[in-house]
């Protein structure tokens, strides 16, 4: 079920109504849990079983890890949780990719092998809920959490529909304590939650799908025909599309959860205003980068084992982060480039930090724009159909290819959108999103909300799934 659909509006209205009935908190949690399964079943009912498997395995593994006295037993049950969750992810997400590469490797060795197409359907959001569920057993293993006494709470944590299919990835320690007492939004929270839902939908439907998406599709769909301007504008369009699409989803998710009285963690903090790559990852898809940092980078040793090991650890984390986004070499390259950028930034900082003054507004702005430009180049690998298409577009970006794909109207539309997006993020970079919006007079907020609601009512009816659903 997409947030940008009529069926979701109906679904949410029913869920909110049920949530405000005079029922016990336990019944309300059960309602939310069932509603979440229904929400997921709207895509493919049989895949609800995968949610049950993740839920059951991590629930049992968590209890066994906590109860075990011997390290081997604790490790065994953590291994079970990792094997099941990552096994599900590996089979559904990487099965076809692994087979494809295995066949290519055999071909290189001169062995002809033609297996039948695996025909594996990727369950929507599997990368998100397997990580979320996994965080529970990992936190119990690390001693950060005790097994939760209520299975219903845990099932709700794994399946909570606002963030089930595209995050934010919520940790058990953040969500489960909220299940103790009845959650019910105040009237003001409901107002803010619904406003966030509207704002998120506006980001998705108008800014990502209507303004940026078609231009990005046009350029990335025909990289061989893109010239210098087309390639750059197409890349800028995609950088806007992916931000508004994904941040839009997170805004909707946080807003919907708040309408039900639950608080979800922030997932984006004006990322294109970052001055450097490590800052970018502290602002972009925060729930994933902090997950990878806490459970992978730190586990590998983080920055405690010297500069070389730090670089290796960061690169390995980013490579896996790239692969998390999709089963394709271009995602691995994208992750690899980000790993390299983080290492390069660390090296440059150690040499130049004391020699160059970056406190002035001009220098800060230049740093931000330089970071944004390089991030945009990395998006080419992320969005391209394959590595060949990515290199074709990069060639076009250096002027090595002629082409005339985009109209002047499309070019000016994307340039304008990019300027507004960057200016907005730059001005708000040090502010809390809600606090910043709350400074605006109420009548101006009303006017903005009226424009948002009108735009949504008059938006083209074409349904486009959120980009991150495929991950």
């Amino acid at each position, binding site marked *: *079920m997409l947030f940008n*659909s*009529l*069926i979701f509006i*109906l679904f949410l209205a029913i869920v909110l109504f049920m949530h405000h009935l005079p029922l016990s908190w336990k019944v309300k949690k059960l309602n939310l849990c069932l509603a979440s399964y229904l929400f997921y079943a*709207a*895509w*493919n009912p049989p895949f609800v079983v995968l949610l049950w498997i993740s839920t059951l395995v991590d629930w049992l593994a968590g209890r066994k890890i906590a109860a075990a006295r011997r390290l081997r037993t604790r490790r065994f049950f953590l291994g079970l949780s990792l094997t099941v969750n990552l096994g599900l992810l590996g089979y559904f997400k990487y099965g076809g990719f692994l087979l494809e590469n295995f066949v290519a490797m055999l071909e290189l060795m001169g062995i002809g092998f033609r297996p039948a197409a695996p025909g594996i359907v990727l369950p929507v959001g599997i990368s998100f809920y397997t990580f979320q569920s996994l965080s529970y057993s990992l936190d119990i293993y690390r001693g950060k959490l005790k097994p939760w006494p209520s299975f219903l709470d845990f099932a709700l944590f794994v399946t909570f529909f606002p963030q089930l299919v595209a995050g934010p990835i919520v940790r058990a320690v*953040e969500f489960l*304590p*909220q299940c103790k007492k009845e*959650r019910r*939004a*105040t*009237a*003001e*929270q*409901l*107002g*803010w939650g*619904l*406003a966030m839902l*509207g704002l998120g939908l506006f980001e998705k439907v108008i800014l990502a799908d*209507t303004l940026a998406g078609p231009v990005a599709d046009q350029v990335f769909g025909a990289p061989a025909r893109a010239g210098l301007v087309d390639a750059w504008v197409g890349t800028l369009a995609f950088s806007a599309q992916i931000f508004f699409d994904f941040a839009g989803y997170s805004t909707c998710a946080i807003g919907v959860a*708040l309408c039900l*009285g*639950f*608080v979800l*963690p*922030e997932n984006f903090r004006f990322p294109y205003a970052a001055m450097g790559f490590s800052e970018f990852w502290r602002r972009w898809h925060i729930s994933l980068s902090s997950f990878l940092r806490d459970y992978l980078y730190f586990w590998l040793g983080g920055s405690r084992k010297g500069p070389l090991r730090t670089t290796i650890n960061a690169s390995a984390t980013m490579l896996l982060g790239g692969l998390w986004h999709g089963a394709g070499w271009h995602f691995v390259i994208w992750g690899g480039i980000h790993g390299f950028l983080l290492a390069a930034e660390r090296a440059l900082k150690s040499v130049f930090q004391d020699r160059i003054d970056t406190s002035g507004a001009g220098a800060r702005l230049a740093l931000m724009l330089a970071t944004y430009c390089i991030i945009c180049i990395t998006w080419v690998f992320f969005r391209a159909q394959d590595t060949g298409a990515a290199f074709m577009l990069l060639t076009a970006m250096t002027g090595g290819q002629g082409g005339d794909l985009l109209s002047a109207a499309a070019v000016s539309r994307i340039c304008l959108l990019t300027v507004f997006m960057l200016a907005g993020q730059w001005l708000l970079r040090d502010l809390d999103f*809600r*606090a910043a919006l*709350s400074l605006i007079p*109420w*009548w101006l*907020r*009303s*006017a*903005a*909300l*009226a424009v*948002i*609601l*009108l735009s949504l*009512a*008059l*938006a*083209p*009816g074409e*349904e486009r799934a959120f980009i991150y659903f495929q991950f």
Partner: protein
Amino acid sequence: MPSSTSSSKQRRGYDGWLRSLAVGLLAALVILSAWEAFWRGAGFAPVIEDDLGIWTLKRRNVQKGDGRTAVLLGSSRMQLDVDPQVFHEATGVETVMLAIDGSSPLPVLADLAADHSFAGLVLCSLLPQWLADGSADQGRSAKWVRKFHQQKWSSRVETRLSLLLQSHFVFRYPGLLPDKLWEKLTGGEVPRPPYAPMREDRYRPADYSRIDIAQLRKARIQRQRRIVEEAAPLAGEAFAARISEIEAMVSRIHQRGGRVIFLRMPSCGEILKLEEKTWPRRGYWDRFAATTSARTVHFADYPALSLFDCPDGSHLDFRDAGSFTRKLTDVLGLQR
């Protein structure tokens, strides 16, 4: 990140949002109502968009029916010329319009042939190019058939909700959405109500008195010229193979007790001349008619069907469509 929503600090952060939202919502409703009233005043009425969603609902009706449904296949000529309601009244048979504008009906026929629950009547309008060119089968109809089999329950609910909105409000008419409106206004065009709005049964009554018919006819002829230029009609063995392919579909339906009738719907003037020049009747239609076990009806062979005028060269006016439908059922011997 706070873990609870109950602190007073947090409550302060949410202050005024309910009022902002309520006023914003009210303002949006007032403006939207004014927008709706303006276009209704300009002669617009609610219009249903012809898309995959409504087509799959109709296709599902065939699947869920008693297997004896009459199915109308084809492209825009079937959608504009044959009124399913009149067809139903004349024959007493449940009638479903599955024609798809600008697309070959053969993928849908193949799908019905493979559907073991179907043993009804198929009225299939074949344009000469659909018959003579196999590559035409890769278009929209093939995609819709594929999507029909993959469709989830939630998509059907979404379509029903969308139909509810479209059938009650003018503001959801695609031609009046801001992007299309902008295109029209910057192109110096005045937005006009559609001349062939679709009904919920997917029939599209065309009222040519609403538009500049000379301009439409000219546009149709230009379009037909483009189609003719790109045409790559099959010949010899390849055409014989295509006929056999179609015959295999027909046989499967006939074996289950169903019936298939192929129709060559009326076209007039320059359009008819262009069709005849590119896909001559003798070389294609007649050869096909002589081979297939299905009944074939060419409009030119029946005075009752050939006396109708096609104002745009390709389709009938709604004032004639009812009469044409009745005459068609008469010619086919389907009247109850």
